[in-house]
């Protein structure tokens, strides 16, 4: 299954990697892998659609996320996120 989506970035918690009003192209494709350090768009159960970096992955495949900016919502606040909540892995950024 291929899926490509464009999202508009809102907020500054991923600065300097991406900033407010940037666009990101994210996608899922057969055999895609989410690894530590990659940036993902996630349908978070509480925070809705967020863009964050994968900080670590536990042994059952859940993701811990973090922002690139110090002021980001903390990893603890975001909690563990199941892999099926991932909308896509960010593959391209269109900077504002």
């Amino acid at each position, binding site marked *: 299954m291929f899926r490509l*989506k*464009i*999202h*508009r*970035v*809102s*907020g*500054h*918690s*991923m600065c300097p990697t*991406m900033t*407010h009003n*940037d*666009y*990101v192209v994210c996608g899922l494709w057969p055999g895609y892998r989410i690894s530590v350090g990659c940036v993902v*768009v996630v349908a978070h159960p*509480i*925070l*809705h*659609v*967020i*863009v*964050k970096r994968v900080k670590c992955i536990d042994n059952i495949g859940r993701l811990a996320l973090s*922002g690139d*900016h110090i*002021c*980001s*919502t903390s990893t603890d606040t975001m909690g563990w996120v199941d892999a099926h909540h991932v909308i896509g892995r960010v593959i391209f950024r*269109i*900077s*504002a």
Partner: protein
Amino acid sequence: MLHSLTSKLDKLCGFDSASAHCDIPCKIYDPSGAQVAALSVLRFVDLINELADKTQLSVADHAQLSRLVREKEIHAKKVKDEIVVIWGDYFKQPQFDTFPDISKLVHNILLTGSACKQHIARDKAETLLQLVNQFAAAFWTTKGVETYTATCPYPPSEQVIYPKLN
């Protein structure tokens, strides 16, 4: 160019937004935190310059100087952070239409905030406070709240823009 093309597509198709908010959007925005931080920078600059007037510094003076410099830098950073959050999270197209130069003002605040970290010149700290006051005035105007100018009732006793909330 790619961004403006995507932006046009966005207007046509309406891409979903992916939040990189610093917190859960709570709609609580207030520039007073930035104003108090800017006043603190000014106060720390004054206290540093009081030490500079001494002919000889004791160990206690050196310790005090270290603390003042550290706090000055922390509060200058705080000014930048508070302003960026309001500008990035609160200001949307209607506010940008009302204050088309607001991004230029924010950029100026960020540059002046950095200058206040690098230097101990009072005029830079004064400029920072004036710019933050301008930002506060614009912010309250977007909220439909009148403002007034008063001297803050504590050192450094400088002019501050306050909202008329009653």
